[in-house]
């Protein structure tokens, strides 16, 4: 419990610093939310009040923006985020089978995290890697022509590596 509290206090201080850094920017909310998520891993609801105050927005507006965009999350993800492309080009090259394989191996559905906290599985609609479909992204690294066995290797690698690459 004390650990959790300390983490929250650290996050709050970090977030306040980011708010100060971004609040004068025109259209500051998206750059600020990106900065928070890049640093903390997600956008904690506990920071909505300070964001709304700094940017003269209502809490509902902040909540509305965070939840409108697929990229922002309100909960801590796994140590790694694995995105599987569901768009047409990848479908033409067998992404459906890859999705089914990933869900079965990880024992999760989309938007869920594996029991060991290693991987959060997300759908994505195009990574711009359509020439080498099907595509998968793990954190910020992209993989092309991914077969089920290559997916197994990516999963195995993500499971053993502790920190985000």
């Amino acid at each position, binding site marked *: 419990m004390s650990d959790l509290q300390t983490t929250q206090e650290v996050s709050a201080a970090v977030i306040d610093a980011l708010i100060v850094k971004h609040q004068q920017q*025109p259209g500051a909310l998206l750059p600020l939310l990106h900065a928070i998520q890049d640093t903390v891993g997600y956008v904690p609801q506990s920071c909505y009040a300070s964001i709304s105050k700094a940017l003269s927005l209502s809490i509902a*507006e902040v909540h509305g923006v965070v939840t409108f965009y697929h990229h922002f999350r309100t909960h801590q993800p796994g140590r790694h985020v694995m995105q599987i492309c569901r768009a047409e080009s990848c479908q033409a090259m067998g992404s459906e089978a890859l999705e089914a394989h990933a869900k079965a191996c990880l024992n999760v559905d989309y938007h869920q995290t594996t029991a060991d906290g290693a991987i959060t599985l997300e759908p994505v609609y195009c990574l711009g890697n*359509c020439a080498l479909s099907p595509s998968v992204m793990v954190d910020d690294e992209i993989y092309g022509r991914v077969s089920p066995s290559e997916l197994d290797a990516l999963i195995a690698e993500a499971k053993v590596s502790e920190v985000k690459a």
Partner: protein
Amino acid sequence: MVTKIYIPRDSSALAVGAEKVALAIAAEAKHRGLDVEIIRNGSRGLYWLETMVEVATGQGRVAYGPVKVKDVASLFDADFIHGKAHALSLGLTEEIEWLKKQQRLTFARVGITDPVSIADYIAHDGYKGLKKALKLSGAEIVKTVTDSGLRGRGGAAFPTGIKWNTVLGCESDQKYIVCNADEGDSGTYSDRMIMEGDPFVLIEGMTIAGVAVGATQGYIYIRSEYPHALAVLNEAIDAANQAGYLGDDILGSGKTFRLEARRAAGAYVCGEETSLLESLEGKRGLVRFKPPLPAIEGLFGKPTVVNNVISLATVPIILDKGAQFYADYGMGRSRGTLPIQLAGNLKHNGLVELAFGATLRELLYDYGGGSASGKPIRAVQVGGPLGAYLPESQFDTPLDYEEFAKLWAVLGHGGIVAFDDSVDMAKMARYAFEFCAVESCGKCTPCRIGSTRGVEVIDKITSGKDHAKNIQLVRDLSDTMLNGSLCALGGMTPYPVLSALNHFPEDFGLSSEAK
């Protein structure tokens, strides 16, 4: 003598191991005591050959590919750094048939230069367009762009010069240039390739746009799914600022243009220009009613040019070589070239830039090499997830905005996704509705509700429930979405749905005579 070796830093090359290949080549060269300089270029766009490694020789650049880490030692054994023969040798890059037949104007430098070296950019004719523009009046620049016939690649194919002219004619204390780099269409990646392979051409195009219409601030709204492209863009923007090509008093002209790249956040609808502006303002990406047009009341309520990456990246060559040079390419009212992106089930996927007028069949078979699976190509979707599906009988259609419109299809951003005969077109129609439901901004009812109902109706059709009635219902629903939606997301979802139903009725449980 130092040998220059080119290894792409393009996302798709990285996706098949370019980084590891680069590290292995560097290590092997060091181990053998060879003096090499590794340049991380963009991709030439022959993606089935990535990682394609090129070596500069006296005869020109010699290509090898696809190179894997395990091939590196044998490449050195074969003395590839002097362009010698190897099983993976592709000969002189410029002589590769696939590349040689293309007409690369917008992509003239992609894969050739070091993307973040401004000196390399200038050595390859970079910034000639801006230098000419700085000697012209705003109206003269806009006239050049108008006369070139350049049209937007977003789907509406609106003439770029006319848009600029509206912004030029507005009186305002502040105007903006916004680059729509939210390339979210499946099967498209040319924006990404420009941003990763030749970012200065986009920066130069935006600067020319700013000088032309009197805008001093530009934003590039780039997808969060493109972290590598964002990194390259930021490096290039820094370099352009330092070299005096951006910022105050550009090249001593007294003109100001500042540029910033802003990350999007994974909402497809933000590729629509008004929801993109809402997003840049820090709001939910809800579509705005038009009018007012963004050219008159755009970003923060000010006159704003909103153009796609390819439109803006094509401006420098138009200014450099003149409107007529560009307009001489193409057919009908589709002038210039189109960077076509081959994707999906094809043997040779990649970037093909050609004058408008090439046929789909030429692209699918001559360039694409037919399907990757070896089965017949059954359907092709052109222009992204909101584009129509075309059957084999329409493969002889030339790539031309008006010719596609006649077929009730769109060219959009020039993405072509091929499917072999294992595709289930009822499933693809269902997916189109599902995608619209996931990505709808929710502002208008036809799109928000229609997409969800569409999924349900397709499910009823494929399970055979009240079949004839539900086929009619899907047509009625499509009609409502087509005519009643606020923007192209809801308004064009019927394109993939109805084209699938019309051209492939057998997949919906209808006899093929139902066509």
